[in-house]
């Protein structure tokens, strides 16, 4: 009887720990899946990045792609999960880039 209780306790702790990490693992993916909702909430269909005027160019350069009409922007969540977005390129107009963003793929 005592061993049965011990096994149950160990088992429940393992399940709780697994549930903890699985939840943390899926939260970034869930938040990214809501990105279009966030875009709509942020600025009437656009997401705004508060960044220096040339920062966007730095992203473009880091992707090694020419800044044509459509530009692929690659972002990472904490440098581990790579998300790639296709965004119409806009000439910097000031402090805030407003880009309609379409998630294309995610490499997990």
């Amino acid at each position, binding site marked *: 009887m005592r061993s049965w209780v011990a096994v*149950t306790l160990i*088992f*429940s*702790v393992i*399940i*709780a*720990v*697994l*549930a*903890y*990490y*699985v*939840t*943390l*693992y899926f*939260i*970034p993916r869930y*938040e*990214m899946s809501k*990105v279009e909702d*966030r875009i709509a*909430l*942020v600025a009437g269909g656009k997401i*705004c990045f*508060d*960044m*220096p005027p040339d*920062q966007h160019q*730095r992203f473009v350069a880091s992707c090694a792609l020419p800044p044509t009409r459509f530009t692929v922007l690659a*972002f*990472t*969540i*904490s*440098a*581990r*999960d790579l*998300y790639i977005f296709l965004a119409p390129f806009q000439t910097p107009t000031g*402090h805030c880039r407003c880009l309609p963003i379409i998630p294309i793929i995610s490499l997990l």
Partner: protein
Amino acid sequence: MSGVSRIVLISTIILISLAVGVYGAFYAISTGSHMNSSVACGQWWTNKVVGSVDADARTRAYVAKIGLLALAPEETTYYHLYDADGEPISSDFIYEIRGKDIPARWWSITLYGKDHFFVPNEENRFSVKSTQIERKADGSFVIYLQRAFHEGNWIPLGQGQDMSLTLRMYNPPPDIRNRLDQLDLPTIHKIRRAP
């Protein structure tokens, strides 16, 4: 114990364990602003591992919840401020942020609401940037944080409670990671209740 009772008991334990794990994850995120890797610098908080491969699952989930993603540390260092004089930032008060230039190629201070989005206001003004800020002769600056219009560096507070400020430092000095708690960052003070 009968077979049915045992199945019910095991199922209950599994469900409780799952609930504890899931709740624990969300609770861990809710306290994410003060994680083990967090560093205080005056009234501001930053995190040493945000945007790096060292970020653990909890940090990444927290970042995703509050801002979707974080740039790599050499690109941007983020500081967050959650209270002024020990109390949450509220649109019921008038605040002043005083400081001098911040060591970065470009920086901004942005106001966020409790939901981590911009605080709506008629001027569509959400932040103050290093390229726009009005400085005094000695290089220092004052930012007015209040609902009503104020001449100069003004961030409208809109309507809300439990707001926060984010300081973004783009391309900070390379050695900044070693002195995240020693920077001379702006200070915020509550001046008075808004009329």
